[in-house]
């Protein structure tokens, strides 16, 4: 008989899913709680946990990486409510074609699918609007850096600032940007802080309601 070797790597999603199902069904509350904590690390429900997380979403699982829809379906099935908004957000990052996947285990409930498509669209529109607002209210004075976009002239600077904000990581409105590509160190720091508040207030706080759930407290 073969024995399973001790594991030093993250589990594959299929194994993780089996473990969650079986420990729930057959009454292993301690292990289920440990699983929930690990899920919470990768699918946070608090802004502080999100900011400090070193691995997020399906990247936490070993290869092959699961489809985000499969993860969301597992959380729906196992009632991991705290993880649903962020799992839905991760699924939404794949765009409409990935969301509407018909592969086994990736077919989302219709209502969930509609909520995510609607919510992601709303977030992208809000991001564009917010980028313009941040750009046009930016304090342009006082930059002495030689390699800062703010030295390119007012209109050029506004356009670049707006572009870098609205094109954030293919729609990932929650993640920070590489401000250093455009700004000097001082200006990058100021913009990062401003953008951080924007991400937290406009997107993270509203994430559950945008994607079909009531609030973070509600889940």
């Amino acid at each position, binding site marked *: 008989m073969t024995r399973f070797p001790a594991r030093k790597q*993250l589990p594959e999603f299929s194994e993780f899913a089996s*473990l969650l199902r079986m420990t729930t069904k057959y009454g292993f509350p301690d292990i289920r709680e440990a699983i929930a904590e690990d899920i919470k690390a990768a699918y946070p429900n608090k802004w502080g946990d999100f900011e400090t997380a070193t691995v997020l979403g399906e990247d936490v699982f070993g290869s092959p990486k699961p489809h985000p829809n499969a993860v969301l379906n597992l959380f729906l099935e196992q009632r991991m409510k705290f993880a649903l908004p962020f799992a839905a957000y991760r699924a939404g990052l794949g765009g409409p074609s990935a969301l509407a996947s018909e592969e086994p285990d990736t077919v989302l409930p219709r209502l969930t699918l509609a909520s995510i498509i609607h919510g992601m669209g709303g977030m992208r529109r809000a991001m564009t609007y917010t980028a313009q607002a941040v750009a046009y209210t930016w304090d342009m004075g006082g930059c002495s850096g030689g390699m800062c976009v703010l030295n390119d002239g007012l209109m050029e600077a506004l356009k670049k600032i707006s572009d870098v904000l609205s094109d954030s990581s293919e729609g990932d409105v929650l993640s920070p940007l590489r401000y250093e590509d455009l700004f000097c160190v001082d200006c990058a720091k100021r913009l990062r802080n401003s953008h951080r508040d924007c991400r937290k207030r406009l997107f993270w706080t509203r994430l559950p309601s945008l994607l079909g759930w009531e609030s973070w407290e509600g889940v």
Partner: protein
Amino acid sequence: MWLQRNGEEERNGVAEAAEEREGEDSDAATEIPAGVETPVAFTPTTINIAVPSPILQAIEISPVFHDAETSPDAFTDDDQITVASSPVSSISTVSDLTTTEFDEDIGEDSGEQIPTRHETFYLEDGNVEIVCGQTVFRVHSSIVSYSSPILRDTLSSSTLSAPKGSPRIIFKDSAEDFAVLLKMIYTPGYISPILNVGPAN
């Protein structure tokens, strides 16, 4: 186990290569009239089943102990043999069938598959067989029961209901899921390495 008529094994075109059973419990033999059409009723120790003729010719039928919720009315499909409440689907005795040979013999002709032994968790010294889909596990009831009150209740009731031999229990779980559960139960230190997936990693 093969269908028996007058104490002799019934062999047909798709079963010619099957080995004779060893340690066959004569009480377990179920007599099936020749040429019978579905549905077929078995008495007194078996449940009533409805099985199409091609399957009758090919599969074995073990003596099945009644699950309280199992009744002939539950069988609506021709090929449905066992129906019961979760997590157990049915309970029977463990036979010494040679699953590999059955697979080879009847797999293509009948379209039906006999459960195959799980490569890791068919433990020869186990005392209970658990069937999930097309996979059969053989485990130690004491070890599995110790880990979970739910499994303990399930296994103890099924063990008590078995008149002789080891019980065979059909679970509704997938074989993949149940193998992971057994891996967790039987492998010391399995959990802690795989669940350390937080920010520290």
